[in-house]
């Protein structure tokens, strides 16, 4: 089986799932943010792969990816800023302890 779209897709799914796992299990807000970046990266792989195999000359997927990267950067920035703010008010960024509001 030669290298094809499916390989990339499965890779993408695997990375996505790993990121997901990280995002949902790690206590540190920063690590969660890192995991989310992983997920976005995984998606980017899928987008580029589709771009390569399905619309090889149009590059739509690559354009999409560029925007995705921009968004990822923006989210990371805002996310980290918020983490800073929360650290300032609570001295911790352990998400399991950030549960003032519940029920």
């Amino acid at each position, binding site marked *: 089986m030669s290298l094809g779209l499916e390989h990339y897709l499965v890779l993408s799914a695997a990375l996505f799932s790993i990121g997901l796992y990280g995002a949902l299990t790690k206590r540190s807000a920063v690590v969660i943010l890192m995991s989310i970046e992983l997920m976005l990266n995984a998606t980017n792989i899928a987008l580029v792969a589709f771009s390569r195999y399905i619309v090889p000359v149009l590059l739509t997927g690559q354009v999409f990816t560029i925007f995705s990267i921009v968004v990822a950067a923006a989210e990371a920035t805002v996310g980290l800023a918020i983490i800073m703010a929360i650290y300032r008010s609570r001295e911790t960024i352990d998400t399991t302890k950030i549960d003032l509001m519940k*029920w």
Partner: protein
Amino acid sequence: METVIPNELVWLIFLLPLLSFAVISLILRPFFSNKPRLSGYISISAIFGSFILSIWALTSILSAPSHELAIPDFNWLVIDSAITIHLGLIMDSLTAVMLIVVTLVSLMIQMYSQGYMQGDPSYHRYYAYMSLFTASMLGLVMVDNLLIMFVFWELVGLCSYLLIGFWFHRPAAANAAKKAFIVTRIGDFGFLAAILLLLSKTGTLDIAQLHSLAIAGTLAGTVLTLAAIGIFLGAVGKSAQFPLHVWLPDAMEGPTPVSALIHAATMVAAGVFLVARMFPLFEHSEVALLTVAIIGGLTAIFAATMGLVMTDIKRVLAYSTISQLGYMMLGLGVGGIAIGIFHLFNHAFFKALLFLGAGSVSHATGTFDMRQMGGLRKVMPWTYATFLIASLSIAGIWPLAGFWSKDEILLSSINNQPILFYLAMVTVFMTAFYMFRVVFLTFGGQYRGDNSGSHSARPHESPSVMIMPMVVLAVLAVGSGWLNVTGGFSQFLGGGETRGFFEGLFHGFTHTLPGLPIPLAWISLILAGLGILLAYAIYSARWLSAERITRLFAPLHMLFSRKYWFDELYEHIIARIVLLKGLFAGLKFFDSRGIDGAVNGIARTTVATGRVIRKAQTGQLQLYGMFIILGVVAIILAMYLSG
């Protein structure tokens, strides 16, 4: 009075007392409360007017062809072609007789009440109710439509309720009133059911039309029987027949004139009247007619047994009334309208008189307990004399009124229902016994009452305003029976043959019926005489000790004096235990715990569900994230599982 009574005046017979009721309750009571006498005068004048008009109506009917006047009617409830209920009057011989009875007795009793009720704080109310009752009773006997009759039927019941409970502050009176209403309503249930049945099968409730349908045979079979029995059930309730007799003795809690009018002479007789009114229906249903006769005959003896042992004078009279009503039913069942109604007619006078006498006695002694009386013959001669006449009359002593009608009933029953005849004969004996037990206990011997009691005055004769009506009634108790000596009364009511006055006077003593050794009149007279004699022996001459006899027949005495435990059965076992504490309490429990419990349970479950679900919202953001993914996976899986 040659001219026929005008229609408007016929209506007036019924409207006069009604008007009196309205005037008393709407004008006199609110605005003239310090002049109670006025209401008595108004009421009496009204009933007097009705009485005069009734006589005019009677003479008109006597001279009318087929003894009937046609009165145009009004629409009461008309719904297109689906239903038409007219408010109209039927003016025939039966009505005429009843009118006379009602107006006359009512007149007498209302006059008597002026004395009896003197000084009662609710004098206005008393006369208002009396007028309303008289109006309703007159309406009952006059209307030509079964449904409207039911209206008045209920109204007299209502008045009965109000008057029994007249002294509502006494729990016993309030209880008795309620009991009377509810028990008679059980009977009314049958009456109403019969009305529904008749309307649905015939489309009419007009009495004359129903008669002709029954006579023509259009209305027949099961429907007819069921309808007749339903109607009779109404009569059973109203006339206190077995097994719905229990309310009447308790009804004696009302003022005595009320007992005389409503619970002796008129309202309780309405049941008999009803059967008579609807007689063609009964006539064409053997089962129904037999039922009437059997229930009547049984009630007659059954009630008499209880009358034997009562110590309260009014209760004796109450059982006597039940017993006599049973006679009337028996008369209707075995002999027809004329015989039953004739006894009703006579009974109204002598029984009213008996009650008035009892009232007079209690007026003097302040009690109805015969053990507290005695020796009143000397201080109350008028009362004694009239009471004695009435007692002789009810005992069936020739030639007083009671003799005639009772003999006719016996005569008819021997032909049709021999068993009932023998029961009736026993009843004759008992009647004479318990009536004279009352006479001897009350008027004979020495006064046993307590002079120092609340009723401080010594026993004294009642005022003339009370005595006069009693005298009038006494005359009637003697003479009312003579109306049919010639058979004229029966003829008027559409039955029987006529004979000469003197022939009629001794007819019963000269004709021996097949199966009997001697003429019937002798037998009944002898039995009555024996009864009187026994009473004399025990209660006056004291040849026999009452106590010893009581001991001798202890179980029977117990049975009678506890009224066969019917009150206990109805009130305690059925009403209180089975229904109120059992079934109804069960239903209430089901309602509050079952249905409402389910409702609250659902509400609580919803709230509890919320309480559980919100626990998922732990505040842990990663859990929230997990639900996003699980949601996705679940949707995909669900889609694939459902295809």
